[in-house]
């Protein structure tokens, strides 16, 4: 009965358009009321309800989210994107489909400093879609490749989604998760570079003009300065010098130095607006965690995770079948719910089952993020899809067809990541994060 109230009211409120964090919170409050009505008010009383919200975000590791978001915001506002695009031009601009290749590589690099697909679409998309159209590419292909390549943002480190998974799963290393996303991210990028190459050979053989060596070196230097953020974060964590939070703080300091002092793209007067934007973005995540803490408590009291595990086990009694079903569940969920709320809702339910079947948590985390990354660019609810189409001035239907070969590459990567866990686990193992 309580589960019915909880899930029913949540779904109804969400469909009405109530923000997901509030829909979850209200459903949990109704659940608490339901207990009182059924004569069992001590399961979760008024005070416990708000206490769980407060304690749900009272966590030091969660601080990493603030710093990663702030670093991404500084980089996005500070002209890093155009320098990464310039560097990508040196590296792949001379291949057929040069601008499409630059787009993919820039997204891979930018994902390595921002950790956000939406930031990637906003920053790279604003530059590359127009440039590609001016060079003769169709606007729909330019938008499609911008969107699909942006999905690398939450997969390659630094990834806000991985930090969130580490927090939700509890007993899993942030460093392991961040490193676990490297190979899948590179595989997706390589696949998309191949699609861009084939597209170039077939429809767009022109290449970008050759650059003098000095200019090439200047561009690579400026781009690498931006990518050094990745070295700070991964280096600090993997060497055991810093926690993820501290690595994020140092990266934020470096991003400020780079964009204010070196690039001179951000002025001190811009900082309050950037900091405020980071606070809002972080708060959206934190508030979701706060309300979900109450929701999850009731679900756990009603033994829903155990019930899901039992029934899932009846369908999938080995880890591979579970992973296939999990992929399907996440792909469908991702189409309707954004990555952050989906992770917050699904991880606590799926975790006991994954542990029962011996699935490595680093593998599970990376797999979940890769799956949910599809949802960022697929209708009906795809945050990046909406932003990209708005920038390009295209209806969503216009990008579906050119996106298909790029999605096929992502699906092939998802297949590999699902059935060859070593692709995820190899790198973390080299640094001692996985046994």
């Amino acid at each position, binding site marked *: 009965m309580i589960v019915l109230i909880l899930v029913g009211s949540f779904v109804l409120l969400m469909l009405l358009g109530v923000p997901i964090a509030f829909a979850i919170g209200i459903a949990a409050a109704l659940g608490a009321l339901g207990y009182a009505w059924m004569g069992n008010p001590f399961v979760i009383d008024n005070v416990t309800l708000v206490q769980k919200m*407060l304690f749900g975000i009272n966590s030091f590791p969660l*601080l990493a989210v603030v710093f990663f978001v702030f670093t991404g915001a500084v980089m996005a506002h500070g002209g890093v994107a155009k320098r990464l695009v310039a560097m990508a031009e040196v590296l792949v601009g001379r291949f057929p489909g040069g601008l499409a290749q630059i787009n993919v590589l820039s997204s891979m690099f930018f994902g390595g400093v921002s950790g956000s697909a939406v930031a990637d679409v906003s920053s790279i998309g604003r530059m590359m879609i127009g440039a590609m159209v001016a060079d003769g590419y169709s606007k729909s292909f330019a938008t499609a490749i911008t969107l699909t390549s942006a999905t690398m943002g939450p997969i390659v480190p630094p990834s806000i989604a991985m930090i969130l998974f580490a927090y939700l799963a509890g007993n899993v290393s942030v460093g392991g998760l961040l490193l676990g996303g490297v190979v899948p991210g590179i595989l997706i990028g390589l696949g998309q570079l191949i699609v861009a190459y084939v597209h170039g050979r077939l429809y767009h053989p022109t290449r970008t003009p050759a650059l003098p060596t000095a200019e090439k070196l200047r561009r690579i230097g400026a781009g690498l300065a931006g990518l050094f953020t990745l070295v700070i974060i991964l280096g600090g964590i993997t060497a055991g010098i810093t926690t993820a939070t501290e690595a994020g703080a140092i990266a934020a300091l470096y991003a400020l130095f780079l964009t204010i002092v070196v690039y001179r793209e951000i002025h001190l007067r811009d900082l309050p607006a950037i900091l405020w934007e980071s606070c809002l973005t972080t708060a959206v995540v934190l508030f979701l965690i706060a309300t979900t803490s109450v929701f999850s408590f009731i679900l756990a009291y009603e033994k829903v995770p155990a019930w899901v595990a039992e029934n899932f086990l009846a369908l999938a009694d080995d880890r591979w079948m579970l992973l296939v079903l999990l992929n399907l569940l996440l792909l469908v969920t991702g189409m309707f719910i954004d990555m952050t709320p989906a992770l917050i809702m699904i991880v606590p339910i799926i975790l006991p089952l994954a542990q029962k079947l011996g699935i490595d948590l680093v593998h599970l985390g990376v797999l979940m993020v890769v799956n949910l990354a599809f949802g960022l660019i697929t209708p009906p609810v795809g945050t990046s899809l909406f932003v990209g189409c708005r920038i390009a001035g295209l209806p969503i239907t216009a990008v579906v067809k050119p996106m298909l070969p790029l999605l096929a590459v992502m699906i092939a990567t998802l297949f590999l990541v699902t059935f060859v866990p070593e692709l995820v686990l190899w790198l973390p193992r080299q640094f001692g994060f996985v046994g």
Partner: protein
Amino acid sequence: MRAFNRLCDLVGSIARAWTLALATALFAVVIATVVLRGTIGKVPSWSEEVPRYLLIWIGFMAAACGVDLKEHIALDVLLEKAGGALGRLLHGLVDLAILGFGLVMLVFGVQFVQEFGSDLMESIPFRNVWYYSALPIAGALITLFALRDLLNIWLAPELRTRRVELLTAPD
């Protein structure tokens, strides 16, 4: 309605300034901790606790402002499709739901602070009321901002806050 909207703007500006001050303090504390650990090898006992409290304040205050700025993630397909009176009705229902939850946070939050706020913090000689208060205050702000939008829908649609696309969404 204009005077009420101006009051809400003022409250929003104060909440924003307070949150920015806390966020700056958070950065200063964490960076100082990293520097102290790297140089003298010692950090203050409160170096993990204070940032957590600051994070809670930042999270709840900015989440409340996020209601006014319409930054919370929502499945708004239906809301965007519905126009006219139906659209206003749906937006009104959404605001009522948010307002209701804001009241839950405010009323139950005050009860929580009254019952447990006098307990001492873990490593600093302050009472928990200083950090527990973030929740009822955020509840009050959420209630105010949801009420503002609810009234604006019917009385002054031209004054409704529009959502701004942030460059750094969490996904």
